[in-house]
C-alpha cells in the first residue's frame, strides 16, 4: 500500500491506517517532564509525526518547580498505547510516564457551559445543574454560565442534557488525574 513501485491507483479505503495492537479503551497518561522550554512542542511534535491523536491535554506545575505534569487522554481503540509510551520515553526531557489504571485513578476536568435560559427554561436548567452539582456562575437575561467539574464522562452527560436548551458555547480543560492511595502517581 502506498508503495512507489506499485502502479495501481489507490482507493481511499485502502489508505485507512493498518491496525496495530489496540486496547480499545480510553487511556489517561500522566507524564512528568522537565520544566524546560520546548518540551510541550517535542511531545506535540512526536504525536503529530507518529500519527497519534490527542483527545485532551492539560499541562500544569507540580509540587516540584523544575517538573511539570502533562495529563493527556487518548483513544486506545485507535492507537497502540504501548508504542506511544515507548516513543514518549525516548524524549530526553520526559522523566516519568504512567498509563493510569482507570479503577485506581481519580480524574477530573473543569468545564464552562454558556446555555440559553430565558424565563421558561431557566428553572429546568437550574434543576439539571443541581442534579450534577454544577454551579451557575453568571446569569444574564437570556443565558446562564454553568461551571462543572467531574470526570470526562460526567461532563459529557451534562452536555447532552443541556444541549436541548440551546448550548451557546462551551470550554473544557481536559482531564487531570492522580492515582488513588498513598503512592505517587
Amino acid at each position, binding site marked *: 500500500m502506498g508503495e512507489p*513501485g506499485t502502479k495501481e491507483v489507490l482507493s481511499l479505503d485502502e489508505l485507512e491506517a493498518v491496525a496495530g495492537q489496540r486496547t480499545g479503551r480510553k487511556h489517561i497518561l500522566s507524564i512528568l517532564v522537565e520544566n524546560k522550554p520546548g518540551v510541550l512542542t517535542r511531545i506535540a511534535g512526536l504525536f503529530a509525526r507518529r500519527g497519534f491523536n490527542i483527545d485532551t491535554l492539560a499541562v500544569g506545575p507540580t509540587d516540584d518547580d523544575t517538573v511539570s505534569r502533562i495529563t493527556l487522554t487518548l483513544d486506545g481503540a485507535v492507537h497502540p498505547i504501548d*508504542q506511544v509510551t515507548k516513543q514518549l520515553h525516548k524524549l*530526553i526531557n520526559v522523566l516519568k510516564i504512567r498509563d493510569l489504571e482507570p479503577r485506581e485513578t481519580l480524574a477530573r476536568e473543569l468545564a464552562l457551559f454558556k446555555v440559553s435560559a430565558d424565563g421558561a427554561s431557566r428553572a429546568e436548567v437550574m434543576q439539571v445543574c443541581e442534579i450534577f452539582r454544577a454551579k451557575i456562575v453568571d446569569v444574564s437575561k437570556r443565558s446562564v454560565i454553568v461551571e462543572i467539574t467531574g470526570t470526562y464522562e460526567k461532563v459529557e452527560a451534562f452536555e447532552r442534557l443541556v444541549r436541548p436548551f440551546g448550548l451557546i458555547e462551551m470550554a473544557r480543560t481536559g482531564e487531570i488525574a492522580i492515582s488513588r492511595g498513598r503512592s505517587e502517581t
Partner: protein
Amino acid sequence: MRAVDALMECLKAEGVDVVFGLPGGANLPTYDAFYDAGIRHILVRHEAGGGHAAEGYAKATGKVGVSLGTSGPGATNLVTPICDAMMDSVPVVFLTGQVRTELLGTDGFQEADTIGITMPIVKHSFMIQHPLELPRSIHEAFHIARTGRPGPVVVDIPQDLSRADIPYEPVTDVHLPGYQPTTDGNQKQIRLAAKALANSRRPVIYAGGGVINANASAELTELGLADRFPVTCTVMGLGGFPAPHQQWLGMLGMHGTRTANYAMDEADLIVAIGARFDDRITGKLSEFAPRAKFIHIDVDPAEISKNVPAHIPIVGDAKNILPRLTAEYRALGTDPSRLEEWWSRINAWRQRYPLGYTDSKDSEIKPQYMIQALFEATGGDAIVCSDVGQHQMWTAQYYDFPAPRRWINSGGLGTMGFGLPAAMGAKVGCPEQTVVCVAGDGSVQMNMQELATCAEEGIAIKVFIMNNGYLGMVRQWQELFWDKRYSQVEMGQWPDFVKVADAYGATGMRFEDKHTLVKDMQEALATEGPVLVDVRVTREENTYPMIPAGKPARDMVG
C-alpha cells in the same frame, strides 16, 4: 574565558580531534576560537558535505563525529545529514550558529528556527539560552549522541552568547534524569531465548546495524558459531558477521539473496539483533515469516514490537547480552544434528539460487563485475562507502565484508550524495586504510564539491563512479512496474568526470574495458591523492533478485 573557548575545551575533553564545518556570520566567534584551539578543522564546500563527512568519520571509527554550520542556510543545509544520522543511528554532534538573542524571532538576517526545523529528526537538541549552560550542554550532547541507541544531537548557539565571558570549570558529570538507557538485558529473558534456540529446528539469526554500533560483531559471530545457526544481516549490518562463511546466508531484504529471504520465510525462530524490521526487510508485513517466533534484542525499547510482535523481547546492549545468550545456550548442550534438515533445505536454495548475472560477450563492464573487480583490486580489505541506488545494492551483494565498519552507506534515509563526503570523513578517521567510494553518476553530483576539500586537505579517497547514464534504480522501477515509461531518468553525457576531477585537483580516469579493469583499478588505488574514476558500465542492467515493494519474500523475482 569566552564561551567559545570553553567550547573548545569541552571538545578536547570529549576527545574530538577533527571537525567538519563551514563558517558564517553567526558562528564567527566559534571560528575565532578554532584559530588557535589545536583541533583539526576541515573546511568543507557545503555544510551537507561536512555533515555526511562527520557521519562517515563516526561510522568508520565508532567515535562521535562533529559537524558545524552557521545559522539559517548553514543549519538548513545540515538537515539532510541530521535526518540521515537519525535514521541510521549515527552518533554526530551538530553545532549550529544562531543569530543574536535580541534578533531571535524577528526574522533576522540568516535566522531560521533550527531547533524547530530539526526537532523531529534529532535524538535530542539544545538551544543555548545562557552562556553558562554551554559547557554542560556540550557534554550532555556527546553523552546522548554516543550512548544507548546512538543518534544526532544539535546544539544551537546564539552568536552573542558565544562571545560572553564565563568562568569555566571542567564538567565531569552529566545530569539527565530523563535519560537512562537500559544496557543490561534481563537474565530471565536471556535464558528463555537460549531455550527457544535450543528447541528450534529452523532458526535464523537476523542482525542489523545495531550490532555494528554496539561493536558486537565478535559476540554475534560467537553466538552464530555456538551451533550451526544460519546468519543473515541487513544492509546496515554487513560486516557484523564475517563473509563469506559456511553459515552466512548473504544479505537479507529487498535485494538480498533468495536463500536469506526464503530462510526467514520458513524459519520457526528468528533472532533479531539490533534490527528494526524495516519494510525493506519484511516486504508485505502480514505475510512476513508466518511460521516464526521472534526473539528481539535491541537497546531501544520502542523498536521492540513496533512492526512485528516479539515473543521474547530483550532490551539492552548486544555486546552485553550476546555473550550471556551464547553461554546460556552452550550450557543447554543441545544436539546440533537437529539442524541438519534445515541446512539441507538452505543448501538447496544456495545451490539453486546463487547471486549471478550474465556477463558481456565483449569488453563491456557489467556493473556486478565492477564490484567483483573492486573486491579483487582491494583484496577485500578496503573501507567501502556508497551512495544510494543500484550501485549501492550491487556493492552490498558482491563485496564480501569480512569485518565491521568496512561498509558505510545510507540505509534508512537513502541519501543520494552521501558516499563521497562519507568516504572523506572515513579516510580522515582511518588514514592508514584504503577508503573507496562506489558512487552513482547521479548521486556523485550531489556532493561532488567535496573533491576540492579532499584535494586541499590531501584526503586520498578513491571514488569509482558506476556510470550508466541513468538514475538507475528509478529507471529499473519504471522498467519493471511502470511500463518502461522512462520519465526523467536519463542523465545524458555530462559532465565529463575526468575533467571534473582535473578541475578539482584530483586525478581523473576512465575505465571501459572489463579485461583490464582489475589492473586499472589497482593503478587508481595506487595513485596518490584523491582519484575520481568514471567506470562505464552496461546501461540498462537490473538489480536482482528483488522483492517487489509490498510483496512477500516468496514473490521474489530475478
